[in-house]
């Protein structure tokens, strides 16, 4: 019995074909995963399903009836709820205001029924086991709570189909567990789930069937019980991935690239000491809120430490600003490439040359030389771009990230700090970024990698530092570390408390 059917859905943006004849169906009441690399067409398909864009050809059917969706409002009214990847939230409204935004309960004439809405909100939050007051301002909530707020919102409208786009990106494992428990309950109630994620373990845990999209086309639907993750990855990438590189011991040279002594900036982190050898990849793992991003930002001169010192290649430096940090050979690939990493108004060449140019204190832009350098960087790091004059938004997420990485490598740093280097990046690009990091380390660069992707930390790093509540909680050698030991260090206090 078909539930939700996509029939020959096609959509082009200008010359780019985002979707070509996508046909598959989702059974009513099942949890169905939609996977694919960035640029495979998942987001476009979701936008079609939620009425944000209309397909050029093809149609959607729900329970054997054609669905014509002209707007997100239409979709909501047909019972299609969406939990967006980028958290759409109204920071200026209360929890209740957020849940009922656009669909406020009103008496005749549009008067708001505040108490009814607050009561419904309280009941919903209770159902989700969320301990947040309905009156709290959304901006005071954690990222995880804001994410769950969207689920609550979908529930408030009694959705028959709930679409989730990468809902766990900002969540810790415990929070993700909570979300899954909620989703399981919804499934038991007969809600059809369409779950989009990069994370295959999640997909296998939650979903009954998995549909793969590749390059805007349909690449197969698989029963969870009859397929191995490798098969899914092959379908996503369209080729076999090269085998994972073996753990290689770091070849350390002379003075450590970075030494941090007693660095303190309360309340973010306190008395942090560690070294990163030249040629070493050190992982820094911690849950959201453990102070790891603040630590990187302090080393990079965005914040001032209260006490403590930083040494680069054996020389003590007091970093005053990111510009100063770049001159001292420190580079930071930030977590949010959209907000912190790229200039979307400038072409790839200017993006690539910006740090090197400012660190060198250039006044004139030497066009010919820069173009040539940019061209070389694009070739060297295999950035898939039309050329140095391409604009960043024409690149896929993985290639944008490679641009951010390349622009810092162009400054020839001694220390490369990476904050979530493969967040929102597809499998192939993730692999390439890991290779770039390994290659740079082999040439004597000290790398400090912050990531909440534990398998990534374990496969990439020679040594893992675990941070919790602003302290370095412990250190594990790369081959001795496994998920359990790292998580134990990262959470033990939290577990004791609860």
């Amino acid at each position: 019995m078909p539930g939700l059917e996509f029939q020959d859905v096609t959509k082009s943006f200008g010359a780019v074909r985002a979707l070509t004849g996508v046909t598959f169906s989702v059974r009513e009441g099942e949890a169905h995963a939609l996977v694919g690399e960035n640029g495979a067409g998942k987001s476009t398909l979701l936008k079609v399903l939620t009425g944000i864009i209309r397909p050029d050809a093809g149609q959607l059917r729900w329970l054997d009836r054609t669905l014509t969706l002209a707007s997100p409002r239409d979709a909501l009214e047909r019972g299609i709820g969406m939990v967006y990847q980028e958290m759409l939230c109204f920071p200026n409204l209360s929890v209740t205001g957020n849940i009922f935004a656009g669909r406020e309960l009103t008496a005749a004439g549009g008067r708001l029924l505040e108490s009814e809405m607050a009561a419904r909100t309280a009941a919903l939050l209770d159902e989700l086991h969320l301990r947040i007051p309905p009156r709290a301002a959304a901006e005071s909530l954690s990222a995880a709570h804001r994410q769950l707020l969207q689920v609550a919102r979908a529930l408030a409208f009694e959705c028959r189909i709930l679409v989730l786009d990468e809902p766990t990106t900002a969540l810790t494992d415990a929070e993700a567990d909570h979300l899954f428990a909620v989703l399981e309950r919804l499934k038991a109630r007969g809600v059809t789930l369409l779950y989009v994620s990069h994370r295959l373990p999640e997909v296998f845990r939650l979903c009954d069937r998995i549909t793969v999209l590749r390059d805007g086309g349909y690449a197969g639907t698989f029963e969870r019980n009859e397929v191995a993750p490798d098969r899914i990855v092959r379908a996503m990438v369209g080729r076999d991935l090269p085998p994972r590189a073996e753990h290689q011991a770091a070849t350390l040279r002379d003075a450590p690239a970075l030494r941090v002594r007693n660095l303190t900036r309360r309340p973010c982190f306190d008395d942090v000491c560690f070294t990163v050898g030249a040629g070493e990849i050190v992982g820094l793992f911690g849950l959201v809120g453990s102070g790891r991003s603040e630590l990187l930002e302090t080393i990079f001169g965005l914040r001032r430490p209260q006490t403590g010192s930083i040494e680069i290649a054996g020389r003590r430096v007091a970093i005053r600003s990111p510009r100063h940090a770049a001159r001292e050979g420190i580079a930071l690939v930030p977590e949010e490439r959209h907000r912190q990493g790229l200039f979307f108004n400038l072409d790839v060449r200017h993006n690539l040359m910006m740090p090197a140019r400012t660190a060198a204190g250039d006044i004139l832009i030497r066009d010919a030389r820069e173009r040539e350098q940019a061209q070389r960087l694009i070739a060297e790091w295999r950035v898939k771009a039309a050329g140095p004059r391409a604009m960043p938004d024409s690149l896929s997420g993985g290639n944008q990230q490679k641009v951010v990485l390349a622009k810092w490598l162009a400054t020839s740093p001694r220390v490369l700090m990476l904050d979530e280097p493969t967040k929102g990046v597809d499998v192939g690009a993730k692999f390439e970024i890991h290779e770039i990091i390994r290659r740079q380390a082999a040439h004597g660069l000290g790398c400090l990698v912050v990531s909440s992707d534990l398998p990534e930390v374990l496969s990439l790093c020679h040594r893992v530092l675990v941070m919790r509540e602003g302290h370095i909680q412990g250190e594990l050698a790369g081959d001795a570390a496994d998920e359990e030991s790292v998580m134990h260090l990262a959470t033990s206090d939290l577990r004791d408390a609860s």
Partner: protein
Amino acid sequence: MKRFWHVRELSTIAILIFEILFFGWYLWPDGSRSHPFLNAENALLILKYSSIYGIAAVGAAVVIISGGIDLAPGSIIALASVVCGALFVDAGWGLGASLMAALSVGVGAGALSAILIVAVKLPPFIATLGVMGITRGLAFIVTEGRYFDLSSKLSGGWRPLGLPADWVAPLVMIALAIVFQILMTRFQWGRQIFSIGGNETAALFSGVAVGRIKTSVYLLSGLLAAVAGVVLALVQGQGKADLATGYELDIIASAVVGGASLSGGRGSVLGAVLGTLIFGVLRNALPQIPGATFYDRLIVGLAVIVIVVMDQLLLKRGE
């Protein structure tokens, strides 16, 4: 947004009270002469002149909360006064019909802004900058350098609805402030304006009819500016093309002093109206201080900065 008396408005009231006490003390007369500032007549005068700003500030606050900006109110005030004067004085229309025509012109100007912003997708600053020029230009074209004297045609004992003429403007302002405060805090329309100002993309994705709501916001701003223009024409007794020059910035400043954030999503109608009273008191009291006559613009400018900075400091403290 829950309570009618938002904390933010209380601090605006506190500034207003402090200001009144200060001038009351500073201008305290020697001997037995009557107080030049603290008297009923002067209070009515302040209310009367502030209400022109205040009525338009209701619309400005709504626009700013929606995340937009409207630069046209000053010009619409002038155009409405001119249209009202031309029809009432020159064309011999009845007063009611002239007023309605003037208000329609305001709505028309608001509609033009709305089309440019919602359909053509111009940034509100540019769209309303254009509308500001167009409406001011139309006012000059209609008058051809003349001005219309309404006061001679309005008989001395003109009492709309049996009220003294001087009370009309303040009462209109107070009524509009209360109505729109309630609409903004208790009604879906207002809540959706807050949501658009807070995060327009999210509002669209949440099923808010963003285009329709934004259209209503600019129509309202145009209409209320025209109401202010009509009130100005009746209060001052004239329709002139160069009236209310620069008022749009004073009106925006009042809304900001009253707690509105120019990045949208925050603010209150009541606060904006109280903001116009803060400036109204300054404009009334400063010329009474010997030697301060030429300082009033400077002091008004400083006041905007000081009040907004204080507000931010208090907000930070509050967190």
